Every structure is written in structure tokens, then in C-alpha cells.
């Protein structure tokens, strides 16, 4: 993991002091609500439906056990003992007191964490691939680049008051697990014919009211030019992005209005002025960033005793085998694997964790995975470097803490925003819908038969629950004070991202589970060997689903 030096530490301390002063100034009446708003937002603080909400950055999803313990302490001391992992690899507190937020930020700074630019119209937390550094399809570990971009974006003086929020995701693998095609900027690490590292640069992707798949504007950007090129994109956006209508203010609207070709030309013209200037990355800096993300101390293959691999013992119970099939992923190093801790047991809001669970995750990380974990945008946690011989032990402990629901990638592994229960933007509740679905589909044999399917729920069209890119998307809408749910099919956030299509008229909350069941039955009726839900849906289109669901009404 990246380790702060005295510069990074000093900056955080100064930021905490600044926010303490801003908060005091606001509470003393010297700052108006409007003027305090962007200041608190750029420190992660929203005023929500019931209480303030504090969003804490987890840069590119990486957390150490020390940081997890600090988060546990903070939720215990300043909140109600639980927190929420978000769909952008961050963590949120739902009940902090405004007066105590500077103290919370000071505690976070002790473990090299912060909430800088976790909301507001600025460059947000950089997100990435939860399997960074461990997957065999990786061109290069994206995390050093994420850290370089994190530092560049932190308190960037030119881009603190953009037309709208700005999200950057970086992937280093052919399989895109970071949803780079639906970010304002998506960076895909590639090698050119000469074997040099660079980036394929996409712009203008995004969800929200106007979902768009990003467009490539640079097929190969040599790595040393990363920051000058990002400066150029942001500068063009800052000058020409719309500011008259917040629903048309994201970069995707500008790229669409100009066309990607024109946008790319404008960026290139801007970039020429900065290219090869002082903001050009140095080989020393790249090497420095990479030095923090070296491989942990893996045991060599010879040192594994095959007899000690208790995960393949025939005495192990079926639930363990199921868990291993669904929640464990291969690792590029023989003898190791990646393990998902599921935060989606029935009856718990997706992504919610108690302070005891945060402590437990820290302990599991220390015992089984070199003291580190990754948070996924699907709101689960990954232990990335687990010895396969430890799997059975890990499973037992994870089960005791409620992390071993063997549902990763299945229907009940839903992405879900906080919705109308917490969020003041929401049109409808989302957590109760998720819970009803978890209760309806609690038969594991049925879920395994259905196989991989992503179901994403958003409580409003801001799309924090990524409903456009769920194989099945559920969108809460409000019509004259009544909550309805629109269903979409065919979305995917993977390597070839697609946006879902609306199935038809919306449903009441209590109809959603029945509708999903019919959708799954339609898939089962039409699938041919080995097809996943998304394959069948793409092959047969919307019509069979519509017929099954709306037939009676017609």
C-alpha cells in the first residue's frame, strides 16, 4: 500500500485544521449555508434526510487492517456503530454530528485517510479494480497510477469548482472490473508494440439521468504524459461544460454536443501547451509510486505441503464447497486465491457493516491476507492474497461474522444505493426492495441454477445504484407522491459495457419480486447450454420478457 511521507501527512493535518476553522466559522454565523455548502461537501459532508452524512474516501478501494480498526473506532465513537460501503469504493457514516466532523477527520488523518473531495463539483475518489496486482489477465498494476492521479487531483487549485462532479476510474486488466466505460474519464492501461506502458483514454461515460458509454479519445497516451493530458481534459471541461443546468453539466453532455472527435481535438490543442512541461511525469516518480505496490511475501510453491491443503479434504461440508465455488477467485500466484467477504446477507442493507464486523475484517486481513483488503464497487470486500490451504479456516471465521453468504455474482449480490431511507435526493426507497428480493430468492439451489446475474437498484435517476448497467436494473421513481419501480434489462458494466432497456410500465414495490421471478423464469425457459442471463437476454431481446410480464394486462 502507499505510505504517506511527511508531505502527505502535513497536507492532511493542514486540511483538518482548515475544516475545523471553516466549521467553527459556520457555527458562529460568519459563513452562510450557501458558502459553507461547497466547503463541507469537499470534505465529504452532506446534510441528509435525517442527519449529516460523511463520505470517507477509500482510494482505489485499498484498506489496511489499521485503517479498518480506525473506521470501527470512529463508527463506535461518533456514530451508531455501523457504516456503509458505497458503490464507488468509499465508506459512509450516516449519523455523525457536524460539530464532531473535524475530530473525525483528525482521527482519519492518523491512519492516512481523508474525505477530501469525496463530494462536491470536483474530482472525486479514484476507483479501480479490486483484483489489482493479483489477476493473471493484468497488463500492469493500476494502483501506482491511481495514487499518482490521487495526488494530482488532491486540492487541485484549478478544478475545485467544476460544472459538476468528476469521476475517474483506472483498470490494468483486459477484463474491466472498474467500469471504466461509465466514468467521466476511464483509463485503461495498455502496452504499445514497443512494449511501453500507456493509457487508452475514454471520456464522457456516466450513468445518472443521461447514461452514456464513454468514447475513446486517445488510443495510446504514453504514461509520462498522463497528468498533462488529464489537465487538458479537465481544463476544456471546466471552461466549456454547461453551468446553466445541473442535469446537463457532466462532461458527457459536452462531449456529445461537440462530438468526441471535436472534443478530442480541443483537448489535443490544449495539451500541446503543457506536454513535456514540468507536470510531465518523471521516471523517478513512476518508480517511487510503483515501489509501494510490490508483491507481498508469497510463499514459494515448493513450500506448500499438499497434505495440509484442508480445502480439498472430502470431509468438508457442502456449504463450504458452495462458498468456495461462488466466493473464491483464482490468483496469478499458485497456492493463493482471492476471497470475497459477502456484505449481502439477507436482511442487511447491501454494503452495511457494523463496527464489530469492521474489526473482524481487520482480523481476517491480518491472519489471512497480509493485513490488507479491497472494497469493491459491488459493495463487498476482497481478501486478495489468501493461501488456498487457509480457505477452510477462513470460511469458518467468515461464517461466524456473517461474511460467508455464498452469493457473489448471484441475484442476491445486489448493488443498492441507500435510497429514500437515508438519502435526500431519492425518489423512492431501495433497501426494502433489496430485502424483499433477498427473502424471495433465498433458495441457494435456485440461485446457483440461475447463475451469474447482476441486479442493481437505484432509488432515483442519479443512479448511485448503477441500475443502467445491471443485467436487471431497478429504478425507483416518484409519481404524485407514490413510489414506483421501473425495470430495465440488458445492462452490463463489464468489458463491453451496455446500458439496459426499459421493460415497460413501472410497478408497485410489492410487485417487484414477482416481476423479477418472471424475468428469471423467461431466462430459464429460453437459455441454451451454458448461457448466462445476459447472453440469453442479448440473444432473445426484450420481447419474450415483455410478453411474459405484461401479457395478462393486454
Amino acid at each position, binding site marked *: 500500500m502507499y505510505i504517506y511521507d511527511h508531505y502527505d501527512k502535513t497536507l492532511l493535518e493542514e486540511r483538518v485544521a482548515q475544516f475545523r476553522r471553516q466549521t467553527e466559522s459556520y457555527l458562529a454565523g460568519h459563513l452562510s449555508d450557501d458558502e459553507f455548502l461547497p*466547503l463541507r461537501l469537499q470534505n465529504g459532508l452532506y446534510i441528509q434526510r435525517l442527519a449529516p452524512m460523511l463520505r470517507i474516501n477509500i482510494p482505489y478501494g485499498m484498506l489496511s487492517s489499521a485503517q479498518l480498526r480506525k473506521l470501527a473506532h470512529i463508527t463506535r465513537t461518533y456514530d451508531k456503530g455501523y457504516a456503509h460501503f458505497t458503490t464507488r469504493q468509499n465508506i459512509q457514516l450516516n449519523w455523525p454530528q457536524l460539530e464532531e466532523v473535524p475530530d473525525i477527520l483528525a482521527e482519519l488523518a492518523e491512519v492516512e485517510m481523508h474525505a477530501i473531495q469525496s463530494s462536491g463539483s470536483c474530482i472525486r475518489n479514484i476507483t479501480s479494480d479490486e483484483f489489482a496486482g493479483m489477476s493473471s489477465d493484468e497488463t500492469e498494476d493500476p494502483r501506482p497510477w491511481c495514487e499518482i492521479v490521487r495526488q494530482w487531483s488532491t*486540492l487541485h*487549485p*484549478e478544478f475545485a*469548482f467544476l460544472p459538476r462532479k468528476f469521476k475517474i476510474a483506472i483498470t490494468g486488466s483486459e477484463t474491466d472490473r472498474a467500469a471504466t466505460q461509465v466514468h467521466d474519464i476511464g483509463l485503461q492501461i495498455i502496452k504499445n508494440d514497443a512494449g511501453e506502458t500507456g493509457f487508452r483514454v475514454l471520456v464522457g461515460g456516466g450513468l445518472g439521468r443521461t447514461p452514456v458509454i464513454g468514447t475513446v479519445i486517445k488510443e495510446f497516451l504514453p504514461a509520462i504524459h498522463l497528468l498533462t493530458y488529464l489537465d487538458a481534459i479537465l481544463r476544456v471541461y471546466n471552461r466549456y461544460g454547461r453551468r446553466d443546468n445541473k442535469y446537463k453539466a457532466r462532461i458527457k453532455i459536452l462531449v456529445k454536443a461537440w462530438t468526441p472527435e471535436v472534443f478530442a481535438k480541443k483537448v489535443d490543442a490544449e495539451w500541446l501547451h503543457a506536454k513535456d512541461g*514540468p507536470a510531465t511525469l518523471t521516471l523517478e516518480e513512476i518508480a517511487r509510486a510503483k515501489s509501494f505496490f510490490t508483491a507481498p511475501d508469497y510463499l514459494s510453491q515448493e513450500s506448500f505441503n499438499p497434505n495440509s491443503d484442508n480445502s480439498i479434504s472430502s470431509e468438508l461440508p457442502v456449504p463450504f464447497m458452495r462458498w468456495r465455488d461462488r466466493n473464491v477467485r483464482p490468483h496469478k500466484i499458485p497456492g493463493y486465491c482471492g476471497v470475497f467477504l459477502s456484505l449481502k446477507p439477507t436482511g442487511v442493507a447491501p454494503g452495511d457493516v457494523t463496527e464489530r464486523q469492521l474489526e473482524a475484517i481487520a482480523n481476517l486481513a491480518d491472519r489471512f491476507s497480509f493485513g490488507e483488503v479491497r472494497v469493491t464497487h459491488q459493495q463487498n470486500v476482497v481478501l486478495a492474497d489468501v493461501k488456498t490451504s487457509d480457505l477452510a479456516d477462513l470460511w469458518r471465521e467468515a461464517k461466524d461474522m456473517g461474511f460467508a453468504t455464498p452469493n457473489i455474482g448471484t441475484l442476491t449480490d445486489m448493488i443498492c444505493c441507500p435510497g429514500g431511507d437515508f438519502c435526500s435526493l431519492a425518489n423512492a426507497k431501495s433497501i426494502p426492495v433489496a430485502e424483499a428480493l433477498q427473502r424471495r430468492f433465498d433458495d441457494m439451489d435456485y440461485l446457483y441454477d440461475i447463475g451469474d446475474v447482476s441486479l442493481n437498484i437505484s432509488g432515483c435517476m442519479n443512479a448511485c445504484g448503477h441500475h443502467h448497467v445491471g443485467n436487471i436494473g431497478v429504478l425507483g421513481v416518484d409519481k404524485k407522491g407514490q413510489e414506483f419501480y421501473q425495470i430495465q434489462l440488458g445492462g452490463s458494466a463489464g468489458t463491453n459495457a451496455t446500458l439496459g432497456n426499459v421493460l415497460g410500465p413501472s410497478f408497485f414495490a410489492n410487485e417487484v419480486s414477482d416481476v423479477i421471478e418472471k424475468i428469471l423464469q423467461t431466462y430459464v425457459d429460453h437459455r441454451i447450454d451454458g448461457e448466462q442471463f445476459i447472453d440469453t437476454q442479448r440473444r432473445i431481446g426484450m420481447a419474450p420478457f415483455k410478453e411474459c410480464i405484461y401479457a395478462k394486462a393486454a
Partner: protein
Amino acid sequence: MQKLLDNTGQIIENDPWVIVPKDFDGPVTKAHSLLPLQYWLDTPSNPDQELPTGIWFDSNEEPETVAEHINRWACIGIHFPTFMDGRGFTLARFIRERYGYAGQLRAFGHIIPDQLFFLSRCGFDSFLLESPSDEMDPELYFDNFSVIYQSCADQPQPLFRRRA
């Protein structure tokens, strides 16, 4: 009450500059007028031939239109219609870094004290605050951070080239 600050937070005394509004259409007779861009473009015998004047840009205006003239003005203003309109930050860097402007660069309109640090990093060196609180200690806002990561108008070398 208005306060005009320099980039250390000190009050600028005896400031001669007067901002001429966009809808002004008479002849300019006074020195130290900050003229709206369009007025300057529309006035064939530009008054700064005889009088020392400056120019100001609104946040949606383009310094490119007068690039070759930038260094003739002793003072350039950039207007912030609201403090959430961040275009002025980019315009300032443009004028300072691309055109090498060495005169006074003034932020005016709706800016708030907590923006002073970023504004000054982008190259502004005078700031017209419309109604700062009496308790406000301006120096505080310029000294918030001793660490800066990025290349900008105040420090072209990013931290990674200075890290020791």
C-alpha cells in the same frame, strides 16, 4: 464593506482601478478604468492608447480574442458571477502561464475567503471581497497549506519534482 487584498492577505491601499460595467457606452475619460472586453473590442480608437487602462473578462469570455494585447494592460480583472463558477481559475492560469502576463490580476464579483488560496495559486494577486466578515483574518486564508502537489501558476514544479 468591500476589502481589496493582495496575495499575502494585506489590504491594498489607494487602489486606483475602477471597474467599468458591461453596459457602459460613453467615452472613457478616466485613467485606471478596467474596461469590459466587448467595450474594448468595439471601440476602434481604444482608449488605452492615451490613458492607462485595464480590461476585464467575464467567466465565459475568451482571453484568446485579445491574446496579443494582454501585456499592454497594467491590470486585468476576472469576474466571478457566482463563487461556484470556477471558469475564472482556468482563465487566470491561461493569462499568467500561457501569455506570461506580469501585471496585476484581480478576482472580483462573488468570491469567498476560502477560495483565496486556490485563486492565488492560479495566478491572481489581488482580490476584491464584497462583504467579508469583520472578524476575518485574511492572512489565515493564504497560509492554509504548506504542501501543494500540482504544478500551477505559483509553482510550476509539481511536488514529485521537489520531493526530498
